């Protein structure tokens, strides 16, 4: 949210990529932050984009 001050919240089912909340330039940082928070390495070569599209998908994929 700090990167998008125009927003007050991010619904858990909002598509972060289609809405460009995460764009190509911030995608690496996005993955990096998820890795740090989940304490897991993410293999970008085999990455399934659907795992990152929404907050609920991220939670399901990396924090369960």
């Amino acid at each position, binding site marked *: 949210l700090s990167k998008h001050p125009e927003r007050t919240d991010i619904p858990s089912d909002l598509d972060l*990529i289609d809405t460009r909340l995460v764009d*190509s*330039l*911030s*995608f*690496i*940082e996005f*993955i*990096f932050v998820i890795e740090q928070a989940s304490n897991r390495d993410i293999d*970008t*070569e085999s*990455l399934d*984009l659907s795992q*990152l599209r929404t907050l609920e998908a991220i939670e399901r994929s990396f924090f369960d």
Partner: protein
Amino acid sequence: MTVPRVGVDLVPLARARQLVEPSYRAILERMLRPEEIDECTRCGVLDASAVAGRLAVKEAVFKLLRTREPMVLWHGIVVRGTPGTWPEVHLSDRAAELARHARLIGPVAVSVAHDGDYAIGVATAFAVHHDQVPITTSDTDHLREEHRHVPVDHYSTRGRQEMDFVQTP
């Protein structure tokens, strides 16, 4: 028959300024190879403008690949060049594979410009036009043959003559 392809991208310097901060070093290193970071360093300081230009060129080249890959192949698209020289692009690994899949032939030519708060990268290449020309026609066979056997380094931009293709008005 070949068709030209163009990719373009714009990077705000504000984004690059963040990336050159020490706390972002690990992220920058996922986007630029060590030799690229060295070339963006001026008098021991990472230059945000140079970083922005390099990222813009990488994204422009990525657009030539017309892929649905989720992420720019930052390390597979290598942009080399020091101040006063023409930037050159080398594709490797997955990026080179995608270039073959996209039927790009010959070199990828690039150019970069900086002004104010932005850097712009432009990339051009030729591709075999597979929609309109049957791939078995004789005039494309040599292109396909060349394309099939083209080494990864062939996608590099080499020499002034190729760069003049981009730079000459």
